[in-house]
């Protein structure tokens, strides 16, 4: 029985590892300029933790194979080489790995999230609310109108609480429910939440960032491939959370300029 268990353990280990090695279920296509760094980091994490996983599982199988079927009734009281050195070795090995991953990983994360955006970035304001996202472009004047939470009125599509009556710069602001951006141009988002915490997650962009009510959170990236991708909320935000999504549409530069002009004309 012990040998069979050891065999099953080894087979499970090999098959589950094979799924990762062959990338059977892997990340979606990367459409961002920084995504390769995230993917590289993920691969390194997978490899280093995967090697430890395989070794420890196979060691477990080996021990079960070796000691599992003893019928003489004697208890195993000793460990080859002693128990203490083994425990110390395991703690140091796993601890060093976790520390190394944290150190290298946070460097990669900071390189993406804590660097200033390109000064020529396209500025877009993002409002999240139960249960939708809205995106605001400054319009032809290049200036965002000030936001006033007390003026938010869904009935007139005033999702940001603009005051066009008194604020001229708010009159040409373009507000849309789809994040439309040009390809290969840096984009700088400012994330705001109207009510509760939400999240901006685009797997293809390798970006996941929370919205926090009361904070304006900067986020920047460059999309390198045209296409339409889904933005989903990954922070449980209420009853309609499952339905909180929007789309990001990455357009060729000329097409984006035309889109922006068309939208400006509608304001």
């Amino acid at each position, binding site marked *: 029985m012990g040998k069979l268990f050891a065999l099953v353990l080894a087979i499970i280990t090999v098959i589950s590892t094979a799924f990762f090695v062959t990338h059977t279920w892997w990340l979606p296509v990367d459409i961002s300029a920084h995504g390769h760094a995230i993917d590289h980091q993920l691969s390194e994490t997978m490899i280093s933790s995967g090697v430890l996983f395989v070794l420890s599982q196979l060691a477990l199988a080996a021990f079960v194979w070796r000691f599992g079927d003893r019928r003489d009734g004697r208890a195993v009281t000793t460990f080859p080489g002693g128990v203490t050195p083994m425990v110390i070795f395991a703690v140091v090995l796993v601890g060093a790995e976790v520390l190394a991953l944290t150190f290298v990983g946070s460097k990669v994360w900071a390189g993406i999230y804590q660097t200033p955006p390109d000064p020529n970035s396209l500025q877009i304001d993002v409002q999240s609310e139960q249960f939708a996202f809205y995106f605001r472009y400054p319009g032809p004047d290049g200036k965002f109108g000030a936001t006033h939470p007390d003026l938010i009125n869904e009935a007139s599509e005033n999702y940001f609480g603009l005051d*066009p009556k008194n604020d001229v710069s708010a009159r040409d602001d373009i507000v849309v429910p789809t994040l439309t951006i040009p390809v290969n141009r840096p984009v700088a988002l400012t994330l705001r939440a109207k009510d509760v915490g939400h999240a901006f997650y685009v797997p293809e962009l390798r970006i996941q960032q929370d919205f926090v009510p009361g904070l304006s959170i900067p986020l920047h990236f460059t999309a390198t491939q045209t296409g339409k991708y889904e933005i989903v909320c990954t922070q449980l935000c209420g*009853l*309609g959370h499952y339905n909180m999504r929007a789309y990001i549409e990455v357009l060729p530069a000329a097409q984006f300029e035309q889109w922006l002009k068309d939208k400006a004309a509608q304001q």
Partner: protein
Amino acid sequence: MRTPYIALLATATLALTAGAGRVAPSAGGTISGKVTYTGTPPKMKPIDMAKEPFCARLHAAAPVLTENVATGPGNALRWVLVYVSAGEQGAASTTETVRLDQKGCQYIPHVLVLQPNQPLDIYNDDSTSHNIHPLAKVNPEWNKSQPIGAPPIHAKWEKPEFIPVKCNVHPWMHGWHLVLATPHYAVSGEDGAFSLQGLPPGKYTVTAWQEQFGTQTQDVTISGNETKTITFVFKATPY
């Protein structure tokens, strides 16, 4: 074979009964007219329903426009409630069930008038979930989820109140439940026209209410079966 026949008979009976209830009273005066605006109203903005592909597809050819200020040809104002706010109010009728549809991620009708305790059935005709949330202050506030294919929600409002209604899932969905004690009311159509019928002789104050521009009132005296024509003109600003 018998069931469809009975269903047909029942439908016919219902139709006849409903029809009988709607026959305009032959006696009494009429106040009719038009609601218009001067100035520049806000633009009716197209609503982009990209977040809800089912509804976006329905309106792909002609996007739905915002209805908070709905205008028509000849400066007409639509969705304006005109009702008798003072004078002989008449007895509220509460028998006929009022229907509200959530269709294409829109409330149909945008402005729904009810009498206190009048039965209200709310339908979800869409292949998506809705969450109807009337923001009542005088009546108890509630908010109910209605998944795809769910049976209609039965509701009623006990006290007169103008209640804004929103959908918690689709922020652009917006409508009104106007609970009125008087049966003398009308909602202006696309041409801005309204008509209050069956008014006994007497002095009346007629109020016109528009969700963004507020209210206006006019005093009208009705004698006999006469028809008086009045016009409400709201001053519109673009913002």
